[in-house]
């Protein structure tokens, strides 16, 4: 059994067949972390004692034949902006390097109660500010496919750890592409759920109206299994939909004959890197082969997405980071890194007296136009497919001196957050030299995750990219 290819499904199968115990599996992952993470740097904190303690408890249940919990004995790790009670949570920032939360957030709690084993807390861009992982105050995570290249951000450690087989699943957040971009750069499946599907309670807020709570897995099936546990109202987040879906795996294997897939023409521009364009076109052909109808559509305000995003997001960031004053927890504000300072100042400016109407209010108005683009489009098609990044993963240092250039890498991901719709990033191949992953995203109307899984599963089973693993 190749540990790098373990999924939730195969681990549960292993427990059922008594192939191994929870402690066995947990130790396997902990050993891999010890072996490879000094290089890959995906973990900020490894909770070895805690994990083995959880495993022991679950093995007791295993002995009694009780493995009914939906994620029984599945190891996982959380992006280090998910608060975990009693376990250091840092946001990968010097401001919180010694913060020990007094409570568990909803998603952490639900996953715990579902039978998972916590391996530790994952590296990310500090405060989730970034697209490459380079803004971590503790040093960046590396792309397991080629450690000279960024794994994408801000959920850098979350993506890289799953890609490297250091954990089968991990949690992440997507505010402007922070799950989809690293997923597409690491050959993993990254889900950005609909805004209002998964509770944000217990996840450090970046941009309150854009943050979406999701996860990384190796397969589409695993992604749906996790969503079954994390989704739904909790009484602590006022922006959640009250209705609950029964099972995200329903209809997943139905196939996609007759499904209308739209390709937004603004997303496939001449400015894209050749190999990214190539892989996308191959993907389109695969969808056609599977029986989908491909339709060209237009999202006319795509070009304004970055501007809208880089007004709304920093504005909300500047307010959400105001609580970090070193009094009740954490270190003084002088410990903020440059990118955090930049975004706080930008947001303070765009909300300030005399500028609010021209910036924040204007951005909220253009937001209405962007939402309308999607609403109109979804009247014509069931879902959209598009590339995630106009470029391949880049080398460390290539964009650090130019914040604006870094921001532009979000061009194909931000309007999804602005509209609040869901998007699933799935592996779509590799570049040739060096071998770096390329992904595509499948977007749908609000709360259409079941359809996204259905489409993603068909593509995954047709292409089998998920079976490839990096050599470490």
């Amino acid at each position: 059994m190749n540990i790098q290819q373990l999924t939730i499904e195969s681990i549960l199968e292993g427990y059922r067949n008594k192939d191994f115990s929870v402690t066995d599996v947990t130790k396997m992952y902990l050993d891999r972390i010890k072996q490879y993470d000094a290089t890959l740097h995906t973990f900020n904190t490894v909770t070895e004692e805690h994990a083995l303690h959880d495993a022991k408890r679950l093995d007791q249940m295993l002995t009694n034949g009780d493995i009914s919990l939906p994620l029984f004995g599945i190891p996982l790790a959380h992006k280090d902006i998910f608060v975990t009670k009693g376990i250091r949570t840092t946001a990968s920032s010097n401001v919180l390097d010694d913060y020990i939360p007094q409570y568990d957030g909803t998603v952490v709690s639900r996953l715990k109660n579902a039978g998972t084993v916590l391996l530790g807390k994952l590296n990310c861009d500090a405060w989730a500010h970034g697209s490459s992982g380079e803004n971590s105050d503790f040093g960046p995570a590396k792309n397991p496919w080629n450690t000279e290249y960024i794994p994408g951000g801000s959920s850098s450690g979350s993506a890289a750890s799953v890609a490297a087989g250091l954990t089968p699943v991990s949690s992440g957040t997507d505010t402007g592409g922070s799950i989809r971009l690293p997923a597409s750069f690491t050959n993993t499946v990254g889900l950005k759920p609909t805004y209002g599907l998964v509770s944000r309670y217990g996840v450090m807020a970046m941009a309150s109206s854009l943050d979406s709570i999701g996860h990384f897995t190796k397969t589409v099936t695993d992604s749906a299994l996790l969503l079954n546990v994390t989704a739904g109202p909790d009484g602590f987040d006022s922006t959640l939909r009250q209705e609950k879906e029964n099972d995200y795996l329903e209809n997943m294997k139905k196939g996609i004959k007759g499904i209308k897939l739209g390709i937004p023409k603004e997303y496939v521009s001449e400015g894209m890197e050749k190999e990214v364009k190539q892989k996308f076109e191959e993907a389109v052909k695969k969808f056609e082969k599977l029986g989908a109808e491909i339709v060209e559509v237009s999202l006319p305000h795509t070009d304004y997405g970055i501007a809208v995003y880089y007004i709304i997001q920093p504005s909300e960031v500047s307010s959400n980071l105001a609580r970090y004053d070193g009094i009740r927890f954490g270190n003084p504000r002088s410990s903020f890194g440059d990118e955090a300072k930049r975004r706080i100042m930008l947001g303070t400016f765009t909300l300030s007296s005399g500028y609010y109407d021209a910036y924040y209010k204007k951005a909220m108005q253009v937001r209405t136009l962007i939402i309308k683009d999607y609403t109109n489009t979804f009247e014509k098609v069931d879902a959209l497919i598009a590339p995630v990044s106009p470029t391949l993963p880049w080398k460390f240092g290539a964009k650090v001196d130019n914040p604006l250039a870094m921001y532009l890498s979000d061009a194909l991901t931000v309007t999804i957050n602005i509209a609040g719709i869901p998007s699933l990033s799935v592996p779509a191949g590799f570049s040739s030299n060096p071998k770096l992953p390329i992904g595509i995203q499948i977007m749908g109307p609000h709360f259409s995750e079941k359809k996204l899984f259905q489409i993603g599963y068909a593509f995954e089973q047709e292409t089998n990219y998920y079976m490839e693993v990096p050599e470490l």
Partner: protein
Amino acid sequence: MKIDVKHIAKLANLSVKEDDISRFEKQLSDIVGYIDKLNELDTKDTPPTPQVTGLINVFRPDETAPSLTQEESLSNAKKKHNGLFVVEQILEEK
């Protein structure tokens, strides 16, 4: 557009070293220059969307639940005294 970094940093309760001011000024001005792109769009009659959910009236009943203990509340404070958080006295009133 020139951003007054000193003023903005003060509003944001951030300390910015003298040496860094011009660097931040340039970076922020570049970004603001880019986001000015939105002026290309006529939004005179477009209503703003502060919230994508479409939800209204999300409330809860007036029923208590247990609070953190005093110890839990103070557990991450660098300075505490008799169950209270301690901070340097600010001379200005709010």
